[in-house]
């Protein structure tokens, strides 16, 4: 199972080994600051917004249609933005680094 690293807006890095499920589920299990995920992962609340670093962008893939529609209107969203509830972790994402976007 992959290892993932979250960088919170204050610069704090948290690395989690053997991450399983969606990136949002991992973040909430480990209490990552800035990932409230209050809708539980249905793509409604946008409180699990992360920015994927450039080197991981291709492997993580683009926003899906619903996600794009949500992020299009979110403050601070850009091409690297993803909703972490929409990222299913696979071995291919071992080493993934994401920045948490301030709520």
């Amino acid at each position, binding site marked *: 199972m992959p290892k993932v690293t979250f960088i919170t807006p204050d610069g704090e890095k948290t690395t989690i080994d053997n991450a399983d499920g969606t990136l949002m589920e991992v973040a909430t299990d480990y209490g990552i600051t800035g990932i*409230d995920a*209050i*809708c*539980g*992962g*249905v*793509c*409604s*609340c946008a409180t699990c917004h992360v920015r994927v670093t450039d080197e991981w962008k291709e492997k993580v893939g683009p926003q*899906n249609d*619903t*996600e794009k*529609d*949500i992020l299009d*209107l979110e*403050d601070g969203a850009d091409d690297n933005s993803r909703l972490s509830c*929409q990222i299913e972790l696979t071995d291919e994402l071992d080493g993934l680094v994401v920045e948490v976007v301030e709520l």
Partner: protein
Amino acid sequence: METPSCPYHDPFKKARQENGAMETEVAGEKLALILGHKGVRTAARDHETFSSDAPFRVPIPSEEDARSVRQLPIETNPPEHKEYRAIVEPFFRRPLQKEYIARIEALIDELVDQGVQQESVEIVSEFALPLQSRALTYLLDVPENEADIWVGWGVHVFRDGNSNDSQKGKALDNYLHEQLDQAEQNPGDDFFSALTKAEYQGQPLTRDQMLGFANLTFAGGRDTVIHSISSTIAYLSEHPEALVALRENPKLVITATEELMRYISPITQIGRVCPVATDVHGVQVEADSRVALNWASANFDETVFDSPEEVRLDRKPNPHIAFGNGTHNCLGAIHARLIIRSLLKKLSKLKSITQLSAERSIEKEVDYERALGFKNLTVTLDQ
């Protein structure tokens, strides 16, 4: 999962499909309703065109007669809104804490277990009202027996279907003044004390600002939560297979909560004021007139939700906006979700919920009627 057809759901369908907006009258006021999902979300974020800087005029109907203070933070625009919201946000984030979740679950366990012992339960007055009131004492960190007073105020803190809204509003004002007086004399860790200690732009809050926060806290999460609870229980009583599905797959509680909130949409719409004359999807709005962001219609937008009139407890993605959208989204959303999740979790353990009698609450306006909660709903809870 089939849903019984209800003539009062999605009364905005035709206008939404044709124009994305409709001109109508609500409580005697001419309004432009914005109806499409994207249109509502876009308008919710365009604070210059659709302003919240409008005391008493964000709720629909407006509340000039029902209260004396501007509700905070909701009746302000960014950037002021952000500083106002930050003052009270720590209280509204408490439902993310594990201990808090356990406390709400224990409360719901107690109320459901009590209901099981009774021959029947009138859900609105005997279950939802005490549940909402007692849960609010947890949120505000005040003694639980304060809820006894709040229960006496009824489903809506301003309105009771009669003409004495201003009297009800004054009663709430008096209560809030008392609480703030006590907090100033003897501050603790509760919500009222936090208001007496808070600052806005480097200055202590004025009494009106404190009242503005407290007023919204009591009014905003009242009928909305109560309608959500009664509608959820009504749904489960009409869909025994949902109880089985939730029991067999506890993870379904999360998506089911979101789907029920989409379907119920506990606030039909909320207002914004156009400071200048504005064309809203073809509807001409005069300067200083209002538009409505119609969450209920947006949540049935068939360009976003497949078969929106069907309740699908596993719907995902589900980009509903039942709690509003953008910077003004519902402060109490975390708490409300926790209540419905905990309720589904507990009720799924029951064998059945049988409806004995029900009277829907209907919003009746000139051009539409919409079901929203119940005046009364009597059920048996069978273990």
